[in-house]
């Protein structure tokens, strides 16, 4: 039921609305069969990119091609109805006047609609026997699965998922997400998930592209993206981060939290100022008496069941904000308690160069 695999290649894509540039040279290659995620904040251009891929909008410049066949370039613009690119929008957008069967069969020829294809697809998404229901008789998760089956029915070369889980209840979201992931990998279809939720992107996709100000800032496997962000802003966007200034000291970096090991080595001459990113799970907390380690004082704690978040104030001019630590389970520490902290594992550091990076901003990026 799948097509010969075909890579999606996006090159130098530009799009402006009026005088407002939304996409400014997007380049991205998604290998066939990959489940990719495009993640970005609202206003980053991710929705415009998706609408161009689907064929709803025409780019001002640049190209989109699948398997070497151009869909958009200077001369070509293949219309949405001829692209064979599936689209699952935020709320599923099922045809409310058609039964589940008719929804799934909408893109099929009259003969295929009566054949075994529709029941097959309903089986694939785990909705056997619900073909005669109407969309308003289904739960939100079921509606999303029908939308997926409907998109898969036409054997698309690519499926676009536009924040498909955002409208679901939190309790339902994780299970529907897993289902969708399973269904897509079983169908072997290349897929692009567009989302503003970086946790979602990291947990679902094989490949995550971060879009920022109309450009792709980084494309990587989720683990690599989290471990080695290209800059501190991206690191703060993709996960919670403690950001501070350090000074290069040969193969290590001197920070208010001690002399730390840097992932990939220190990329700056001795004595240069660098921006340092420390993940909360790298910050290990001990009772004060169990030292050694940097001394600090607990300022707030938050218990989240599976883990706890602890804010620790360190006496240092270079650390205006408390350091955040994430520990497994509960920790018996009240605000005011004296503690020591150790940093485990290598941290990330970037030379500050000429443009000073606003460390506070990067920290805030994940605070909300």
């Amino acid at each position: 039921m799948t097509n010969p695999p075909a890579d999606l290649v996006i090159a130098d894509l530009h799009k402006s609305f009026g005088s407002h540039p939304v996409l400014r040279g997007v380049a991205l290659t998604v290998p066939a069969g990959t489940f990719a995620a495009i993640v970005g904040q609202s206003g980053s251009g991710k929705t415009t990119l998706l609408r161009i891929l689907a064929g709803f909008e025409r780019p001002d410049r640049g190209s989109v091609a699948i398997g070497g066949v151009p869909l958009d370039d200077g001369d070509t613009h293949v219309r949405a109805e001829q692209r064979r690119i599936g689209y699952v929008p935020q709320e599923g957008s099922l045809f409310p006047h058609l039964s589940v069967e008719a929804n799934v069969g909408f893109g099929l020829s009259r003969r295929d609609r009566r054949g075994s294809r529709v029941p097959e697809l309903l089986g694939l998404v785990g909705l056997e026997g619900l073909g005669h229901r109407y969309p308003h008789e289904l739960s939100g998760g079921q509606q999303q699965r029908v939308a997926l089956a409907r998109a898969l029915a036409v054997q698309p070369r690519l499926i676009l998922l536009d924040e498909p889980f955002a409208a679901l209840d939190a309790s339902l979201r994780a299970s529907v997400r897993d289902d969708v992931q399973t269904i897509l990998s079983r169908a072997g279809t290349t897929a692009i998930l567009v989302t503003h939720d970086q946790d979602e992107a990291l947990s679902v996709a094989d490949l995550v592209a971060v879009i920022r100000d109309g450009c792709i800032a980084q494309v990587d496997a989720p683990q690599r993206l989290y471990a080695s962000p290209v800059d501190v802003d991206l690191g703060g966007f993709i996960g919670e981060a403690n950001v501070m200034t350090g000074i290069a000291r040969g193969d290590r970096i001197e920070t208010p939290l001690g002399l730390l090991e840097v992932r990939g080595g220190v990329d700056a001459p001795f004595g240069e100022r660098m921006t340092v990113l420390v993940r909360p799970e790298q910050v290990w907390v001990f009772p004060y008496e169990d030292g050694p380690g940097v001394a600090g004082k607990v300022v707030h704690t938050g218990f989240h069941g599976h883990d706890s978040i602890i804010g620790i104030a360190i006496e240092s001019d270079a650390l205006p904000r408390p350091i955040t630590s994430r520990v497994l389970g509960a920790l018996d520490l009240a605000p005011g308690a004296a503690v020591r902290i150790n940093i485990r594992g290598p941290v990330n550091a970037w030379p500050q160069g000429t443009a000073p990076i606003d460390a506070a901003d990067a920290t805030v990026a994940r605070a909300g």
Partner: protein
Amino acid sequence: MSTGHGIAVTSAGGSPSPRRAAVARAALVAGAAVLMAVVLTFLVLPIVALLTYQPVHDLIDGLRAQVTIDAIIVSLKTNAIAFAITVVLGTPFAYILARHQFRGRSVVITLVELPLVMPPAVAGLALLAAFGRLGLLGSELQVLGVDLAFTQAAVVLAILFVASPFYLRGAIAAFEALDGSVLDVAGTLGAGPVRRMLRVGIPLASGGLGAAAGASFARGMGEFGATILFAGSFQGVTQTLPLAVYSLFDANLDQAVAIGVLLLFVSAAILFASKLILRSWTTWTSPSSLRGVRSISAPR
């Protein structure tokens, strides 16, 4: 809510005023009842008077008169033709206008709405000036052997001009209200513009389209001013039911009232049908149905 609040305040003040609050409430209810009675009486009284103007057998005699039967035939025929033209041409017109952005779009919409606010007599004059023998297109039409003024075709044109904007305006609003992503999805499933309109756009807008069609048909059945100026009032040719009411007004008031009662029932039937369509339609419009599902699934 406001009364509950008022009671809470008075009892908090410790004054012996639950009685005063009850009196105030009763006065409010009485005032509301009087207001409703006045408004309803004013609106309903003329209708009741029309219905009870003459005994039923006189009413039936009036309806069986040749002049009435001729007018019924003229009205039904011209309105059916005008209605068919309105729906067949107006639906795609409204769809294109509603779902596409282009330069001059708002000007087009304003032009469509102009006949709505134009006095019908002016519409009749305008039609004469355009299609009459001495009108703008009069000589061209004469060359083709077409003489529109004071023919049944003129009645159809008058109804079209006056009534079709009611459909167009409602249809544009109904198509504008569609969830664009549903149409987008249909596109990605291989449906071209025509199929998107026929299989998704029109079915989803059908409630609004039905209501607009009802308003347009009702306006067409009642059309008077433009018709009498442009088409005249010749029994069996251009004399529609409203024109018959007018021409019988001096000669035979009983017959005029009988036709009036008939038109009243037609209007009521259209109103009722429109409401029925709108109600059955709102049960499966896309956003509300999804919202409904989520609120149902939440407590589980």
